[in-house]
Structure formats: structure tokens, C-alpha cells
């Protein structure tokens, strides 16, 4: 079979897979961002027990393999009465995992904002919380866009691991197609090209977001 024939024959299941991949990625990055914000703010501004909890959580998640986390959630929880579909289990595992990494990017960005910014916010009568929301976060979130783009790209590709628990995402579909047509090289090449083009689209998009929100006057400091 030519590459073109492989594409013609397999584009429909592959696009189904891509849809699940995007679902996995977008849900996990959004839940992960919410978790990451909580962990980062807790680690930087929280009272001691919360700080310890956030630090421990981040270290445990970053210190164990993603695949192990997926297996614990999908295969390890049912005996305790928690039965999840492959998609649910994957979204939870990816959200938690990505959340820990996003937390560290966010923490770095928050701590890179000069302390004088918070002092100025407090000295005009803002509460610490108002200072975080109105002064620190608008600047920290801008700085986190480049590493966050990286995290998004990693996550998009790591979702391919979900094929192992039977989530019908792009990688699982490619395996299914290849097991039928025996064109392993061309089928996986097709899958790789789909991943690559999606990654390029998103990195271009986030690059645009970064430029759009850049603070005028800082162009040469970046």
C-alpha cells in the first residue's frame, strides 16, 4: 500500500482518535491548571500545613511515573469501589500529573515578580488577596505562558499513554488500524504527522497569545 492509500483507508478512525486525544488534552490541561493554581498559591502564600501539603503532593506526583499513576487510578481503585471508564481514569491521572508540573511553573513565575510589587499593593490599602489577584497574578500569568506552552505540548503527546488502559485516542486507533493493514511504518507515521501538525497549530496559537499580552516597553528584556 502507498502512504496515500493508508491515509485514505484510515483517516476516519484516526480522526475519531484525534477527537478523543483533544478531549483528553483539553480537559486535563484545564483541570490541571486549576489544580496547579491551587498548589502554587498554597505553596507560596499558604500557612504552614497547607504549604507542606502542596509541596508533598507536588513531589509525590513528580517523583512517580505517569504510567504508574494511570494504573493505580484505573486498576488500583476498583477494589475500593471506585470504577472509572478509561477516559475518566485517564483525564484524572493526566490532570493530577499536569497539575503538579503546572504548579511548579506557576510558582516560579509568581516568585519572579519583585517583592516591591506586593509591598506597593499592600501600602495602598489592598488586602494580600487583592494584591495577589490584581497585581501579582496578571504579571505571573504572562510570564508562565512559555513554560505552560511546553507543558501543553508534553501533555498532548503523553495522552498517547492512555491507549494502554483502552482509551480510544489517536495512538490506540493507530494500533487498531495497523493491526488490520499490517502497514506499521506508514500507519504510525500518519499518526505522528497528525500529532506534529496539532502541536504546531497550538504552539503557534500560544505564541500569538504571548505576543498579544506582552507588556509594552518590555520587548527587549525577554
Amino acid at each position, binding site marked *: 500500500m502507498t502512504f496515500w492509500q493508508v491515509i485514505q483507508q484510515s483517516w476516519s478512525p484516526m480522526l475519531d482518535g484525534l477527537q478523543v486525544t483533544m478531549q483528553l488534552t483539553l480537559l486535563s490541561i484545564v483541570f490541571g491548571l486549576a489544580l496547579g493554581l491551587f498548589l502554587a498559591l498554597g505553596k507560596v502564600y499558604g500557612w504552614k500545613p497547607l504549604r507542606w501539603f502542596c509541596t508533598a503532593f507536588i513531589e509525590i506526583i513528580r517523583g512517580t511515573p505517569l504510567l504508574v499513576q494511570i494504573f493505580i487510578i484505573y486498576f488500583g481503585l476498583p477494589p475500593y469501589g471506585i470504577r472509572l471508564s478509561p477516559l475518566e481514569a485517564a483525564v484524572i491521572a493526566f490532570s493530577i500529573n499536569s497539575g503538579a508540573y503546572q504548579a511548579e511553573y506557576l510558582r516560579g513565575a509568581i516568585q519572579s515578580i*519583585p517583592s*516591591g*510589587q506586593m*509591598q*506597593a*499593593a*499592600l*501600602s*495602598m*490599602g*489592598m*488586602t494580600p488577596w*487583592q494584591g495577589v489577584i*490584581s*497585581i501579582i497574578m*496578571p*504579571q505571573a500569568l*504572562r510570564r508562565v505562558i512559555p513554560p505552560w506552552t511546553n507543558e501543553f505540548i508534553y501533555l498532548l503527546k503523553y495522552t498517547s499513554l492512555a491507549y494502554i488502559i483502552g482509551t480510544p485516542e489517536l495512538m490506540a486507533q493507530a494500533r487498531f488500524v495497523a493491526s488490520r493493514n499490517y502497514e506499521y511504518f506508514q500507519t504510525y507515521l500518519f499518526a505522528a504527522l497528525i500529532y506534529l501538525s496539532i502541536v504546531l497549530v497550538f504552539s503557534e496559537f500560544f505564541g500569538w497569545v504571548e505576543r498579544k499580552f506582552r*507588556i*509594552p*516597553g*518590555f520587548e527587549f*528584556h525577554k
Partner: protein
Amino acid sequence: MNKEKEIVLRIEDVHKSFGENHVLRGVSMGIRRGETKILIGPSGTGKSTLLTCINMLTPPDAGKIWLLEDEITGSKRVNLLRQKIGFVFQDFSLFNHLTALGNVSIGLTKVKGMDRKKARKKALEELKQVGLEEKASSYPAQLSGGQKQRVAIARALAMDPQLILFDEPTSALDPELIGEVLGVMKKLANQGMTMLVVSHEMGFARSVADEVIFMEGGVIVEQGPPAQLFSSPKVERTGQFLSRLSGLFGEEGEK
């Protein structure tokens, strides 16, 4: 000259240590409405610490501070009192992600709950006051040091403070930019703003200060009207410091 005016700020026996370092060793002073007082002294003397104690960015270990009738040091809601105390930083500390206008109006909208239109109008007035209304839409990184500090002063003014604290407002500036900031401060002093200024700009002290306070080693060594302090200080150490300072006259004072 303001002896009959009400006391805006009263500081009583304030102490502050950082670990072993006893920075403030019992400072007491007061400022009446409309007065400008200049705080001078060698570096590490606690001048800046005293300013940040006043708005509780650095809570003192002991002693009491009042703003009019309210005791700041015992206050549970210190953010309400901070609104009434402007603070101008040595390094400006403008909010980098906001325009000049945004820097001046954000306190009005977020802290005072003023609606956006009103806040914008008031912020423009304050920028005009410091001669920068045409820079309203510029971001801090697009302004010169002198312009940044003037925006910072407008930001403090917008909150209608009872007094403004200035922490070495000109020592991060190029010599040719110092004048524009001192000009604005002079104008404020003449309009009756109550100000406590850490600065070694002796020309400024001579022309606008009601009183110069010389601090060293965490205590007030001597205080008095500039003319008296400069010409006939009562304490020998004050004279030494002032003569060394006048040797540096026109240059950046030490921190």
C-alpha cells in the same frame, strides 16, 4: 509655624529588631497637618525601617503609632489605615502590567470601590498634578525614572492620603531627573500635604522642610528647623554628618 494644627502622625517609643540587629531603639516623633519633615542619617540607621513600621509593612516589636485617632499598631484591619498613608518607594514599584493611568486608578477601583469612569477622571487629574497627563497610556517600562517616580506620587495622591511617606524618592534617579521629582514634592508641600521624607537632598530640606530629623544607631539624635540644624547643631555628631553630607552636595546621598 503649624503648632496649632492637629497631629496627623504620632510615633511613640518604636523598637524593631531583625534577629540580633536592633535597628530601631525607641523612636518617638510626631507630624502636624501640613508639615514636611525630612529624615536624614547614615545608612543602616533605621530610617527606611521607621517608614515601613508606620504603615505596618514591617510591624514594630514594641511601641505605638497613631494616625489621627486610630492606633495603627493595634489595628486588626490595617489595610483600611494604609489607604490613608501614601508611600513612595525608592525603586518606584509601579505596577508593570498597568499603564500610568492604570497605576493611579487601580487603588480607586479596587480599594475604594469607585466606579471606573470616576476613577479614570480622578487619575487623570492626579497625573496632571504631576505634569504627566500626556503619558497616561504609557507603561512603566516606557517612562524615564523621573516620570516613573512622578506617576508613583500621583498614585499615592489619588487615594487622598492624610500623609505621604517618601523613602529616598530620588536616590535611584540620574542627577538630571532628580529636579523634576523634587519640583513635584515641593509643590505638594506648598499645597499643604503632610509629608515625611527620607532624603539627603539638602537643598530640598532647606527650602521646604519644617523640621529636619537626624537619626543614627536607631534613635533620633537631634531634630529642629533646617536653618538651625544646619548652622548650629546642638550635638557634635549632627554637625559631623551634615558637613560630610554637604561635601557630597549635589551628589546622591548615601542610603
